[in-house]
């Protein structure tokens, strides 16, 4: 469960990137975090991750305050960044074991876990190669594997489907559904409304630093005439905010 209470972020003492933002990401559900460019999505995710400190408000991750008890809170998260070009000179397997050590994954059963994830993502034959030799999609897959090794209760993904081939995208979506179905939390940001529509149980829409809507897409559709596309609804919501 992720809980934001009256969170704001002010840059350089004047520019308010996120303003009095409160929302609740429930367990057992996939929540999409949507907003136009510059709306405050990345800033909010960075605050949830502990990369940025909120100027005001409180962020709780499964009840742990990210500011007061950062290490315990971070252990609960599996994070997939939008930029998979990290640790390029490490071999895939070295990277996964590095992540496993960082997140205290026991040595026992670790190799089997990596093997089964690699098979699922069709990465078995690539684990011995450096990440530098991977395609964009493979880099994205290895980052997803690294984020899930420690069975996080909260899975946060920033634009996760970019660059994935249809099969890997399908697998990732299935994994997100399984994660939520097992009672854990999934929060992901996206620009692709169709993905949000198909995948999300709930959406949080942010615009100009304010949360302009949170709830199901069905509930949002009820406020608009039948036949209105999701794109039109999104534009209307963000324009009138």
């Amino acid at each position, binding site marked *: 469960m992720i809980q934001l209470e009256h969170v704001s972020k002010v840059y350089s003492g004047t520019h308010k990137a996120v303003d009095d933002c409160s929302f609740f990401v429930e367990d057992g559900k996939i929540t999409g975090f949507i907003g136009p460019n510059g709306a405050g999505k990345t800033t909010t995710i960075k605050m949830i991750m502990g990369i940025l400190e909120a100027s005001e408000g409180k962020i709780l991750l499964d009840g742990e305050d990210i500011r007061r008890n950062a290490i315990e809170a971070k252990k609960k998260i599996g994070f997939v960044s939008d930029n998979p070009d990290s640790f390029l000179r*490490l071999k895939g397997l070295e990277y996964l074991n590095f992540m496993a050590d960082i997140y205290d994954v026991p040595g026992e059963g*670790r190799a089997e876990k990596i093997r089964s994830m690699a098979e699922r993502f069709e990465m078995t034959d690539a684990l011995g190669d450096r990440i530098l030799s991977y395609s964009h999609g493979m880099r994205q897959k290895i980052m997803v594997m690294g984020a899930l090794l420690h069975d996080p209760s909260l899975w946060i993904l920033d634009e996760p489907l970019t660059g994935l081939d249809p099969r890997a995208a399908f697998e990732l979506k299935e994994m997100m559904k399984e994660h939520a179905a097992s009672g854990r939390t999934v929060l992901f940001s996206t620009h692709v409304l169709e993905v949000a529509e198909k995948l999300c149980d709930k959406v949080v829409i942010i615009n100009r630093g304010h949360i302009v809507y949170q709830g199901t897409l069905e509930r949002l559709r009820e406020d608009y005439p039948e036949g209105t596309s999701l794109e039109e609804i999104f534009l209307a919501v963000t324009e009138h905010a």
Partner: protein
Amino acid sequence: MRKYLLLTRKLFKSGLGGFGGSNKKKKFRMGNTLLMLFLFVCLLPLLGVLFRLGGDAYRTMAVIGQEGLVLSMAFFASSVLSLILGFPMLISVFYLTGDIERLMYLPVRPWQIVGAKFTISLIFTYLTSFYFLLPLLAGYGVAAGAGIGFWILAVAALFLLPVIPLVYCGILSMVIMRVFKRAKNKDFITVVSVILSLCLAFALSSLGNLNLEGGALQELLLKGGNSLMGLMNGIFPALRFLEEAVAEGNLLSLLLFLAITAVFVVVFILIAERLYFAGAMGMRETKAGRKRITAEESRRLSRRKSAGGACFRKEVRLLVRSPIYFMNCVMLVFLWPLFILIPVAIQIFQNRDVSIGELLKLVSMEGTGGTALTLFVVLCISLGAGMFNYVAGTAISREGKNLYFMKVIPVPMKVQLRAKLLTAVSFGVAGTTLYCMIFLVASVILFGLPVWTLPFALVGSVCANVIQCAIQLFVDLFHPKLSWESEQQAVKQNFTVILGMLLDLAVGAGLGILVFLLYDLLALPLPVYAGIVCLALAAAALLLYKLALAYGAKRIADYE
């Protein structure tokens, strides 16, 4: 030509290897300006020394009417300096920067890309060659009471001189990359070729090593046809025209030098047209074996390690496997003995009448003086070689845009910083303490150096490394370069590294002088004094280590 100019302008704006990066105007920052000013002030004393050297050399040589030789030697030394610095730079700029793939699909000819990259590298080379040559020429000119003609031609020489050495570096790098195009591990080939070229350049500079004292020079001149002249004419055949031009105000000689330089550039461009794309294509790719990992390897890698140990391993792997990081941050720490041994070997080879056995007999380490000197040399090496260890000095800058990762993972910042510091100290210890201990153990066996010196040397050397690395980490934490497009920019175009090096130099020299002076002043028995020095160094190392971690944790939390 228009495209070449466009590319050059774009590369100049974004720095070496930053093509395609942000074009945003940089904001004026007081901190940056003060940092540059501070660096300039730090470098002033050496400018003064070079200025005096130019004047003194002129006065000495003018007595025998050979003042032109001062210019020849200065030009030769500057050319060798450009060779030494130029090869690692050109091989990185031509083949290892991230912009290559973005440039190769543009409708431009290979020479236009290479030409633009060469021009930018030349501009960066001017920074060092001007710093070295300008005060020497100024000292020479002032001592000679030179007229306006000299100054104009000297300025022309400053601009023309580094071109031919860089052409050599450029051609060599293109040939190597073309020959080893199909090599499986190009990173390894790159590093090895840079090491070999550095050894070659140092050997050249050692062959041309001259004592600037008048007597030796005069003797050398009287011999006629000496090795230096032969070497200079052999490698840089056009240098004598430049010397004639500046020393005698001979415009024709300058035009001749200009023409020869132009020929070199044309040859370089022609070679670039044929070789560059062939070597650069697929340079950024590494061969993927796609070989299934064995169960044994998987089990070995899957053994659980502490978070700090995992961070340490990751740091070491990334440093050793990234050629730019390895060449700029690590390599020199290990290579410094070569740069001492090569000149010594060449001198011994040149003076065949010197017997190594006789030389070794002169070294007596049994007396207190010899032992004290040995320990002092170990300390100086450990403090001095720290200046070439840029692992801690770039520890934060190397993270670049991925710095967020340090904040995301559930590992206390102090643990992560400790891993970074430990990595730097490990490389430093391997490059200094290890060498020194091998030398000392050999000295104990061969020359009777007391055994009790070994633990003192070990502790002193390790502490000296911790002190130097902690200082560099402090500086990088204070002013890291986090916004970069290529690894080259993170470590080479990072003035903070120079600041860290200068601080290391100041602290190293200060500590060395203090230890030396106190030995005479306190007149304590050597083992007692060595013990006190080790304790003081250990206390300083511990204090700096604790402060660096505490400051770092707070500082990184503040980065947004």
